């Protein structure tokens, strides 16, 4: 058997549903004095699946907590068979888990679970995203008064945005606290949740609609600070500049923003 054919047979064995290899491949192998070929092949087969499942337990701890050991094992096994790893680093193994959940489960079960998968994946993305150059309060103190009205910002590279339609953040929190499962519920109003890294620690925060609107205006629509004030004046009237400064200060303290370079 040529090397490449032997390796293809070995790969097929690892990827197959059962840990018993096909007999023509097993016939190319030798065991040892007390380790037979079938046991040896089962060691590789089980190690392949359990190594990948362990990574998913780590990256999707809240889904594991939600489903329990058995259901999580079934779901991840099906995922690994459907989307075998495509990247050399196990860090990317869970990239398509949210999409898979939507494809694999019935809609009423999949929508809240997929949202959780996206939230947990957002943490993995924030964890090792580029550092960038987040604005600091000190930078703002140095900003000349005449530069304030034209100030424009973008999100720092680690910031992930999720629109939550369910109480996913509450369930995630409960899993971290190892408290009782709070039950999955749809929210009355979808909520923007941010996940990001600041000074090497990951953070998350849900934003009220007004703050979410203001942030999106600046980082997505590209409003300058004076445009932000003008937009907020519709709701806050003469209190608009104060509200704008309060939010901007909060975002900067959180490490969410970088200066937009024209």
């Amino acid at each position, binding site marked *: 058997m040529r*090397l490449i054919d032997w390796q293809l047979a070995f*790969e097929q064995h690892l990827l197959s549903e059962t840990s018993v290899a096909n007999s023509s491949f097993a016939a190319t192998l*030798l065991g040892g004095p007390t380790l037979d070929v079938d046991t040896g092949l089962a*060691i590789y087969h089980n190690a392949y699946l359990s190594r990948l499942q362990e990574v998913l337990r780590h990256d999707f701890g809240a889904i594991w907590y939600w489903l329990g050991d058995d259901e999580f094992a079934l779901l991840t096994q099906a995922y690994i068979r459907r989307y*075998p790893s495509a990247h050399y680093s196990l860090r990317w193994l869970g990239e398509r888990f949210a999409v898979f959940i939507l494809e694999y489960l019935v809609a009423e079960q999949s929508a809240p679970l997929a949202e959780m998968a996206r939230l947990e994946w957002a943490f993995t993305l924030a964890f*090792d995203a*580029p550092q960038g150059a987040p604005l600091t309060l000190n930078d703002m103190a140095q900003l000349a008064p005449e530069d304030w009205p034209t100030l424009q910002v973008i999100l720092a590279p680690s910031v992930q945005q999720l629109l939550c339609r369910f109480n996913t953040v509450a369930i995630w929190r409960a899993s971290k606290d190892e408290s009782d499962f709070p039950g999955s519920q749809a929210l009355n109003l979808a909520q923007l949740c941010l996940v990001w890294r600041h000074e090497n620690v990951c953070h998350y925060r849900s934003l009220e609609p007004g703050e979410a609107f203001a942030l999106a205006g600046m980082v997505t629509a590209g409003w300058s600070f004076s445009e932000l004030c003008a937009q907020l004046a519709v709701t806050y009237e003469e209190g608009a500049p104060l509200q704008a400064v309060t939010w901007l200060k909060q975002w900067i303290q959180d490490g969410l923003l970088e200066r937009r370079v024209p």
Partner: protein
Amino acid sequence: MSSSFPSLGYGLGLRNEYYEQILAQSPAVDWFEVISENYLVPGGKALYYLDAIAERYPLVMHGVSLSIGGPHALDTEYLEQIKQLAERIQPAWISDHLCWSRGNAHQLHDLLPLPYTEESLYQVAGRVRQVQDVLQRPLVLENVSSYVRSKADDFTEWEFLNALAHLSGCQLLLDVNNVYVSSRNHGFDAWTFIRNLPPESIRQLHLAGHMDYGHYVVDTHDHPVCDPVWALYQQTLEHFGPVSTLLERDDHFPPFEELLTELSKARELGASALARRSLCA
């Protein structure tokens, strides 16, 4: 007969569980081995600690996904990232495993054994030379544990390692525990394996624990080193002279102090083996 490289002494695998303690206590570890893939990321905590620890300790890069024996083309993007990481932390050397970890279609994330045939030998030797051309340094390859072997073998594993070092100029990372594990699983003599390796190519040693199931042994890196492996380690140093030694632990992480105690044991057993060597010289 001795290894031709200066020894870095006694090192530990760098794991995120221990970052804070290493920086706070500057423990008496001579060097650290880092899993290269953990740092092939754009930013974050791991790189922050890596840079800080690189300022204080010699580092060695140890990869797990080169797949030097794989049926696919070498991943040039991966190699480029390895090269960039090496520029960043200036490792004393770069190692990976004599195995394949990627199949034709997918990443398999395991250290899979190769048939020790002439076909494999020339295939792997050619790929080692390609890697060395990119990295501009010798590649160091580690022997892996295995649970099956191919009937078609033309060589023993140690003959294959000899021939590969000869043909490609690669150096060897001798994992003493892996030799022990494979010797039990396949029924060969571990010392025959070790004493037949080319001394001038031995760059580094690994020590680790395993799981003994009686009929077979699985390389798990989640236990302390066992007595037969310590004995083999002493024989190895007596035979090759001083070689950089690394204690691996990849799971069931004990308190850092326990690893330091085990590392002291390696130092003591190593020193007495080297003393015996100089008496007999």
